[in-house]
């Protein structure tokens, strides 16, 4: 998922797709549900093997992940590592688990590219409650989904945070 590509709203090289918005919404809502239920292994199943999960820093939303410092720039192997961590009782920032609510809205399906990958974007709000923390992450998903067999799967998520700085929050210790 290249940096220039992700934030662009209307990509001219995309063609109309037969994948309906409702089906994409089902996938995003299922993702939100599994994350809020802490069913991390099931969540990982939603992804393709060439997954890209990217969160640039608040001050550099149009980042170049090959050269810039990111919060997260994970492929499938690293996502798996993150899931192993979050399911561990030694993930101290998240054990006991925080209570989260992923809210996804304004979903747009923009079309598909030459490889049949469907591109779109959505707005999100992710609330996280734990001890004294009441964190709310707000921003945009630029997502890519692809059909694998009969299932629609997540191939990429580029997560742009709207806040100008992560502070006063101390971390992005959950999956957005």
């Amino acid at each position, binding site marked *: 998922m290249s940096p220039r590509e992700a934030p662009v709203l209307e990509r001219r090289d995309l063609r109309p797709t037969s994948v309906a918005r409702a089906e994409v919404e089902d996938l995003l809502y299922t993702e939100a549900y599994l994350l809020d239920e802490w069913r991390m292994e099931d969540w990982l199943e939603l992804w393709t093997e060439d997954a890209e999960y990217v969160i640039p820093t608040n*001050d*550099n939303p149009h980042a*170049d992940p090959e050269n810039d410092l*990111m*919060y997260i720039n994970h492929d499938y192997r690293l996502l798996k*590592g993150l899931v192993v*961590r979050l399911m561990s009782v030694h*993930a101290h920032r998240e054990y006991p688990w925080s209570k989260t609510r992923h809210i996804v809205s304004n979903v747009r399906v923009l079309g598909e590219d030459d490889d049949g990958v469907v591109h779109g974007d959505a707005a999100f709000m992710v609330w996280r409650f734990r001890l004294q923390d009441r964190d709310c992450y707000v921003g945009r998903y630029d997502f890519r989904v692809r059909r694998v067999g009969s299932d629609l799967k997540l191939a990429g998520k580029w997560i742009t945070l709207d806040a100008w700085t992560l502070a006063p929050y101390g971390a992005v210790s959950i999956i957005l």
Partner: protein
Amino acid sequence: MDIADLIVERAEEGYFAYHRSALTSEEIHRAELEHIFNRSWLFVAHESEVPERGDYVRRSVGTRPLFVVRSRRTGEVRVFANSCTHRGATICRSDRGNAKTFQCFYHAWTFDSDGSLIGVPDEETYGPHFDKSKFGLVPVPRMESYRGMIFVSYDPDVEDLVDYLAGAREYIDAMMDAAEVAATFSANGHGSGNGNGSGADADGWSGPLQVLRGTHRYGIKANWKLLVENSFDGYHLGPTHATYFQFLKDQNVDVSPSTGTMKLLGNGHAVIEYSGSWGRPIARWAEQFGDASRQQLEALREKIIDELGETGFRMAELNRNLFIYPNLFVMDNNATALRVIEPTSTAYMDVAQYELAPRVEDPTVRKVRLESYVTFAGPGGLATPDDVEALESCQQGASSGVEWSLLSRGYFSEEPPMSGELQMRVFWRRWQEQLLAGALVAS
């Protein structure tokens, strides 16, 4: 409680403890700003962040809003209080950029990049005695740069930066020298990519290291001194960062515990230097980096050792957390980074982390550098969030009624180990001396 009573040390039994009101008292926090942060050299920015004339970055340093700008006239770096000399509004209102002039949006007073006041609407209404040259932007009392690292001090009488850095200098030098070898090596085309490597953003900056774009800026609901302790604490690695070591293990990395030493460097500065099972982008390949970067890193390692001898071996092989009193860490471990701790209030700190890389770097090495850094460190890493949790937890514990925190570890060690607490004892002693000296002057 008197400052003198905040630390209890009994040498014969190897006991050292500080009173936890040091983490919660408003009065102590005010005294710290006045007697420590207003009297020390404080890191503000790296010169590579303002490579071109007119480039600026905005910062908060010791709770004061500042901005750093490279003069359009002279090319020198200037640091100004970020406040209009008219009625006080902040005049630099973006985190970074390039400007010809700085205009206050409130009444449109305009300053150039040397801070001179060059425009006042309806200037004649101030009368015949108004002298624009007296209302330029206010520079910080002292500003000095050492090998690209820009420091400021609010104390006009502070000793020179090089003297202040004391023994920390040779560590900064060695790190910069190793980075220079790496940059030259990549620039000469010794890489899997093209000869220019990833140095495209370094135009106008010719030092060995540059700050990469993207800042890890986050907040911790804890007193700033807890992060000082944590950032050169070799003892917490195993228990706090178990999930990180599990991750390395799952990548077939040997995770034998780190061993190493601690060295005091004068003026409160100290360094821990230690082995690590993870790889180093300058220059120690490890399994989790994957095969693509292996040849390049092994060649680079050989080059560094060849050119810098024993120092080169240490730079390539060992990790360092270098503390520059009172609030800067130069982290040279999974990657190279600067961590700046801002003492915002008693129970809250702002943290900024900047990643450094050689000004020219082979793309395969840049890739493992970035991955190595963010898998461990930063707000989205596998480790840093657990440090944040630990410090917030300590801050809550500070109000529990249990009054003392213990820093006795390694008290009787002849060779201070990296997992000891002598560096923290020295930090707390320096902290106390400065508060005591300040209180004395005040009375």
